[in-house]
């Protein structure tokens, strides 16, 4: 079985642009979470979706939005990019969202 897949793996954007990151969870997993990880720090929670509904939101500005599709894949959108948005964006899936998470390899976003 495939693990959690994320695309793209790397991305370079200019300040003010918009970006969409994609995630496909493990087959059968209905929960998808998004995390931002800055180098040298632990991941920071952005969103969790379960059965296509937002179940949790972290302390990120409204420039960050996400959605989950009927096939449980998910997109994370970030508008009006800032230099500080440069980070590794991780997607994690779980069967129900309350046990161990399986992380994808991440999308490394660089804003210049």
């Amino acid at each position: 079985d495939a693990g959690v897949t994320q695309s793209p793996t790397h991305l370079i954007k200019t300040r003010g642009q918009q970006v969409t990151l994609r995630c496909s969870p493990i087959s059968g997993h209905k929960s998808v979470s998004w995390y931002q990880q800055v180098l040298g720090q632990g991941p920071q929670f952005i969103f969790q979706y379960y059965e296509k509904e937002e179940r949790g939101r972290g302390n990120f500005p409204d420039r960050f939005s996400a959605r989950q599709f009927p096939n449980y894949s998910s997109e994370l959108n970030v508008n009006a990019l800032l230099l500080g948005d440069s980070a590794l964006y991780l997607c994690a899936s779980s069967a129900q969202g309350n046990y161990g998470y399986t992380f994808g390899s991440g999308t490394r976003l660089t804003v210049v």
Partner: protein
Amino acid sequence: GQQVMQIPQYQHVQEGEDFTTYCNSSTTLSNIQWYKQRPGGHPVFLIQLVKSGEVKKQKRLTFQFGEAKKNSSLHITATQTTDVGTYFCAVIMDSNYQLIWGAGTKLIIKP
């Protein structure tokens, strides 16, 4: 909000020595998870502990959850080069299902 303090930030060991990282909270935790992240990689789930005083072993790794459920530790016996990486503890918040992460402990094997 909920915080989990993790120490030390770094630990340098000779191959074959033991390694321990600790996580502490000022409040009672309902659960604690442990993850490993290799350099340049992504976090990999190791284990979840939920019971007071729980001890679980995975080969050379021993995980403990304190009696008061306010602290946890990960101990690696006889470290190997494959153990290199950053070890994180994390807690699932019941309110919004987010994982609250410790700062991580980086295991470095001395050459």
